[in-house]
């Protein structure tokens, strides 16, 4: 009896304060960054580090504010973002089409296997020199690097996702004489979708990493340019600001994709 009573009490307590629980969870979420900021602040003011190399948070904030009011911050972010979007979308379409073909056809899989296996380990940044030789230092070379970074995760996950579909669903298709096209639409694609979406998230993350790398080497705008320019101007605050922006924008992009994934997979 006593045990049941205690259990009830716990259950009641939990459901009685959902708001308190949410606030607690939100606090846990932001606590660590706040602690880091405080420690950072203290360290800078205690003179432990050279303010020249490691500016305090408020200096970076001031820097950010100046750049926002001057309109440059938005310019850098939007240009990087647009590059990523463009390269990513091209990669998405190409990787989905090729991935579905490979996933469905043993022959196409065999034909492309060796080539893909050799290309896969070459990191996107290793392509930068060649991309610049081929396309110059304009937009095309950056797009190529971004495309390459996003392409493989999406491709490999699409192929895997299709291969991992439960065979019993394919058998169900046989039982009801479902034609190939319907089977692809109703079984293969939705069945592989969770893994395809994972690939898309990894791909977008990679694309964001690649734009930074490409812009650091040859660009006059963008967050990667902010980084390399900050270094050559010896502006540590610019560099750190750019790094934080890269992190924050990357996180937001991933959040948005997560949200979209949840909406698409409304069945689970």
């Amino acid at each position: 009896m006593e045990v049941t009573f205690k259990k009830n009490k716990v259950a009641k307590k939990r459901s009685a304060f959902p708001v308190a629980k949410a606030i607690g969870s939100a606090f846990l979420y932001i606590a660590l960054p706040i602690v880091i900021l405080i420690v950072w602040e203290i360290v800078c003011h205690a003179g432990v580090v050279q303010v020249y190399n490691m500016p305090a948070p408020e200096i970076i904030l001031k820097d950010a504010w100046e750049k926002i009011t001057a309109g440059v911050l938005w310019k850098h972010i939007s240009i990087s973002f647009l590059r990523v979007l463009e390269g990513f979308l091209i990669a998405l379409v190409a990787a989905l089409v090729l991935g579905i073909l490979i996933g469905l056809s043993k022959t196409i899989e065999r034909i492309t296997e060796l080539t893909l296996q050799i290309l896969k380990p070459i990191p996107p940044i290793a392509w930068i020199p060649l991309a610049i030789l081929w396309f110059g230092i304009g937009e095309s070379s950056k797009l190529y690097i971004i495309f390459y970074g996003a392409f493989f995760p999406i491709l490999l996950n699409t192929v895997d996702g299709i291969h991992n579909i439960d065979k019993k669903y394919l058998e169900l298709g046989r039982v009801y004489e479902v034609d190939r096209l319907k089977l692809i639409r109703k079984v293969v694609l939705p069945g592989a979708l969770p893994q395809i979406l994972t690939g898309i998230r990894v791909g977008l993350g990679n694309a964001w990493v690649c734009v930074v790398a490409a812009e650091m080497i040859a660009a006059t705008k963008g967050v990667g340019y902010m980084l390399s320019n900050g270094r050559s101007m010896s502006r540590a605050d610019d560099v750190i600001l750019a790094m934080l922006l890269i992190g924050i924008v990357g996180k937001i992009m991933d959040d948005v994709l997560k949200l979209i994934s949840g909406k698409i997979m409304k069945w689970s």
Partner: protein
Amino acid sequence: MADKNTVLSIKNVSKRFDELQVLDDISLDVREGGLVSVIGGSGCGKSTLLRLIGGLDSPSEGTITINGKEVKAPSRKVGFVFQDHRLLPWLTVSDNIKFALDKTVDNQDEIVDKNLKLVGLEGFKNSYPSQLSGGMAQRVAIARALANEPDILLLDEPFGALDAMTRITMQDELLKIWEEKKVTMILITHDIDESIYLGEQVVILSDRPGKIKKIVPISKICHYERNGSEFARTKKIIYKEFFKEREFDVGYVI
């Protein structure tokens, strides 16, 4: 020879997987509108037999004909209900049923409504399988299997995963559907009660390789009285085919 009422005719069917003999010389005729349950121990080849009838696999020897035509591949005219409900998780109940329909069928919504009503799930058209209980999901699977108005409905331990209470309800409903639709049904089970309750005849398969050991005709009264004496008598007959009854030894002298 089979008379003209025979829907399904299995003739001397054997099945081997490489060296493993699973089914041995099975012959069985099922009349139109018949209700046959097949019972046997685990791994004796029950599912294999059903898959052969459904055209998902082909016999090593012998022939299976449905309505006089040899079974070579699965057909919409043979409905299949698996032990797992096998609903596509990403499709609504309604779309899951439409999955079974050919695209040339134009009154699809009507068919969905009709069959959902038959299994008592009118209000769940737009639900996803994850929102259904096990029993409800299996009902949808039955509705899907019936959507094409099949000549035969094959059920492979359809209620095996359900709890005892739900199972009894589902058995009642299946029986009602059988009486209402007059569709030929072949039901695989490993539950003796279920085999009697859902059979005009019970086919008993022997263990490895699966062979027809006995066919027990079931009196109609068993479909109404689960606890009647006839039910108990039949149960004893089937029971004896599987287990030796222990001698009741009193152990002392009066």
